[in-house]
């Protein structure tokens, strides 16, 4: 019993002592994995965005398809703040376009993500009414929402 108490105590002590070290220097490969995952998620948004634009380029656009893809974007946009845990920004051994300002201005960042979710929500709502012109106008706001965030928070290539 005494022996196991000692073992547990030294383990806890070890974690307490070494834990900050791990937190201070996370494994770059692990961080890169998080970065790659969020890049893949953003590509899903881009893909849905392309699907909307391509549908609207048709002679007779199917607004149900526009609505479905707008809902995809809305759902993904709501997840955006969760894709950026602290410590997953640019650092040695990690290739990311996420600027440090994301973690310095978290409220603004969240607000911009919400802006995209709102724009996509609006597109889904308007597409539901079957009004093509109004849908096209609403879709333009998705692009503006993307840009509003990227201009501030994404590294320019």
């Amino acid at each position, binding site marked *: 019993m005494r022996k196991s108490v000692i073992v547990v105590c030294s383990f806890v002590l070890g974690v307490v002592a070494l834990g900050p070290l791990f937190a201070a220097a996370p494994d770059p490969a692990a961080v890169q994995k998080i970065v790659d995952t969020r890049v893949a998620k953003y590509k899903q948004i881009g893909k*849905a965005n*392309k699907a909307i634009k391509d549908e609207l380029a048709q002679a007779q656009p199917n607004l149900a398809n526009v609505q479905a893809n707008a809902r995809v974007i809305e759902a993904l946009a709501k997840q955006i703040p969760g894709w950026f845990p602290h410590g997953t920004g640019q650092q040695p051994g990690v290739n990311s376009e996420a600027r440090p300002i994301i973690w310095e201005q978290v409220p603004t960042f969240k607000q911009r993500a919400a802006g995209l979710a709102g724009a996509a929500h609006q597109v889904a709502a308007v597409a539901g009414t079957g009004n093509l012109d109004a849908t096209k106008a609403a879709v333009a706001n998705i692009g503006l929402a993307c840009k509003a965030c990227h201009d501030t928070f994404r590294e320019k290539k």
Partner: protein
Amino acid sequence: MSDGRSIRLWDLPLRLFHWSLVVLLATLWWTAENGRTELHETLGYVTLGLLLFRLYWGLFGSSSARFSQFVKGPRAIGAYLRGQSPVSVGHNPLGALSVLLLLGLMIVEVGLGLFTQDVDGIEAGSLAQYISYETADLAREWHEFLFNVILGVVALHVLAILFYLVVKRDNLVGPMVTGRKSFDEEVESPRMASLANALVGILLSAAIAWFVSKGLKL
């Protein structure tokens, strides 16, 4: 050179094509680097029209612009390199390769641009709607890569012009500006195409470029 015989070598459409392309290449680069994607696309369609016109002019234009007149085989190129070919009025056999290379690269580059989309799936070339998101992403990567190849070939082009100017004492830039060139010996003047012919080519290429810019839809 000044006491030689001056002839009309390059017609106006060809010179306009050449210098427009210089300006377009610079502005296309600038607009791409600075995120002016919509302007970049518009200029891209203009470039498409220009390139189409050059193809038309290479078939039906003035003799100095025609591919059949200046594109030569390996034997003629070899003779030129050994200094054994007759004086070239216009593109020499080696320069012809450079013309074909630059023209070909730019056609492929504009072609890729038509299928290119930005990372966000917001802005895209007019034909990207016919391919998948992933393929359009790939087109963008090739579009970016090929531009660097074009820059390299342009650098080679400028170096060659400098070589002709400094070493061979042959100013190639002047004639591309004025259209006239002096020769020490008697040479046959190129046969100049008519204005009406040029107008047909311009209208035709503009119409095709416009149709492509609309995603092949009327």
